[in-house]
């Protein structure tokens, strides 16, 4: 097992390198640059700025320089937020994004799986229809509709919760964003879980368990549940990587100081180093999570175990 993990981590290094290289050149090939704002800068000033950030070098030179800095975990300075390094920005935004994302994920997993199980156990009944109807709505409604609607009801009409902002970071500020983030995921997980449960409930081995006289709860928890987690895991794993970049839309709508907002602003302003920093973070987390999912597969299904 240890050897397998090490091997997967080593394979991750070239993967990451390819991602870094591709995004670096893609960013540079986008038209415009960090100092091409609406206000035309004096050419001399612009040249001076570009020299400061090393942008006067040919792209290949910039690439070598970038890799050199990266080798000791220096992501470089941000051009959008002067005097701040990309590392600082990420470490500022990450706790906000993580808290939002992880809470939303946990909520989505718990509620989504519960709803899916309840729907499956009442299949084709009114409860099933209600749960699946709500889930279809949850998948169909985009974040940018749900978030303002939530704000309007709970913030503006009922005055229960703040409309936007992070304030002191207390729970009141992140309840609405978490709900907005979690709703579509709850819906997706509920549908996946229901489908998986229904498939497994009609499996021969479930009939065997019932024929052995196992009470229905034991059948569900010991014979059905573990296998039903598999498709949910397949969905949750890669989706969990998005926790790190946060929801670009939700952070923007609620004015939250997370990484998602930096990512949008970085991309708009051609803040090369900021975008690269977030891309590297995202890619790393994605590679690690995929490994984690594969390990979890083996735990859930002995047939998928590596020898």
């Amino acid at each position, binding site marked *: 097992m240890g050897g397998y993990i090490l091997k997967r981590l080593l394979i991750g290094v070239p993967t990451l390198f390819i991602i870094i290289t591709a995004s670096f050149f893609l960013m540079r090939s986008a038209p415009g640059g960090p100092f091409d704002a609406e206000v035309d800068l004096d050419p001399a000033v612009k040249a001076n700025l570009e020299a400061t950030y090393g942008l006067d070098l040919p792209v290949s030179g910039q690439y070598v320089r970038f890799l050199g800095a990266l080798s000791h975990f220096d992501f470089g300075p941000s051009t959008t937020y002067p005097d701040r390094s990309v590392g600082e920005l990420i470490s500022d935004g990450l706790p906000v994004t993580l808290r939002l994302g992880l809470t939303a994920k946990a909520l989505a997993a718990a509620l989504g799986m519960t709803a899916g199980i309840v729907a499956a156990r009442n*299949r084709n009944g009114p409860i099933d229809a209600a749960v699946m109807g709500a889930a279809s709505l949850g998948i169909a409604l985009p974040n940018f509709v749900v978030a303002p609607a939530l704000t309007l009801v709970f913030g503006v009409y009922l005055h229960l919760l703040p409309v936007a902002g992070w304030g002191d970071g207390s729970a009141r500020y992140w309840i609405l964003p978490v709900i907005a983030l979690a709703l579509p995921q709850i819906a997706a997980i509920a549908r996946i879980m229901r489908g998986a449960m229904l498939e497994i409930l*009609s*499996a*021969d*081995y*479930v*009939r*065997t*368990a*019932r*024929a*052995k*006289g*196992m*009470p*229905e709860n*034991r059948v569900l928890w*010991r*014979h059905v549940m*573990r*296998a039903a987690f598999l498709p949910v895991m397949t969905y949750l794993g890669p989706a969990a990587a998005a926790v790190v970049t946060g929801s670009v839309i939700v952070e923007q709508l609620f004015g939250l100081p997370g990484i998602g907002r930096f990512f949008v602003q970085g991309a708009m302003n051609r803040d090369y180093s900021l975008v690269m920093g977030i891309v590297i973070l995202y890619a790393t987390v994605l590679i690690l999570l995929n490994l984690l999912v594969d390990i979890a597969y083996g735990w*859930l*299904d*002995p*047939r998928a175990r590596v020898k």
Partner: protein
Amino acid sequence: MAMLEISNLGVSFRTPRGTLHAVKDVSFSLEPGRCLGIVGESGSGKSQTMLGMLGLLPQNGTVTGSALFEGEELIGAPRRRLDELRGARMSLVFQDSITGLTPHMRIGDQLAEVLQVHKGFSRKQALAESLAMLEVLRLSEPERRLRQYPHELSGGMRQRVMIAMALLCKPSLLIADEPTTALDVTVQATILSTLGKLKDHAGTAIILITHDLSVVAGVCDEVAVMYGGRIVEHAPVDELFAAPAHPYTKGLFMCTPRIDMPTGGMLPAIPGVPPPLNAMPPGCAFSPRCPEADARCEQVRPEARRIGNRLAACLKVPA
């Protein structure tokens, strides 16, 4: 009082194409220590009769009639009561051992939970008992098997695990659905002799669903032949083998290879296929394929009649 008394058992399924009647009007009774063989082609309703009786039909299935097990009505009994009986006093061995075991549970846990749930054994006690049962069934390296997962075992080993599972609580009724189909002859002999011992020493009543007439001849005391969801002939095994009465039973014997047959010839087959459940003929279900059928057979459904020790549902069988 019989241990098992089935009367007018029917099984039907709601489908998008209407209600299909898979089992109709099945009645028989079974005494302790006796073995009943149920034979018939695929789709004749053998397995559905058993699943219906045990409350194991899929969601769209309905069972009607009566099944008294040790004097207790099973049809319509609450799930909790059925859970107490199933696996403990009446056990079922399924035919498909490949998909019949939970893939993510160790063999030991799947065996042990039977004793843990029904007898309140500790896990350790239950595992020790399971090990002993695997030894009885002559499974190689039984300790190792307990720690393995189903996919690590061969088909024959899995089948024996299924049988062990059914025998752990020493049930008074054992229903085995094609228990030896996937096994090679030597293992098959072990299993059949185990069943024989259970019957003779522990007084277990056995229902053996099979299409292998040689297995029936070896273990069973009586045979019920099913066709189109009904029992067409029910007789003591020696009488049935000596002189099958129903034309379908005769057909079954004709297409079974025998050692005293001339070599090189084609094995005869019953012409045609069983009628689909949604297009049963009004008369005898076997009439379209029956060499002896006449116009009356196609219109009048024969009731089962007692002729000596046997029951036969055929207009052509002389009383």
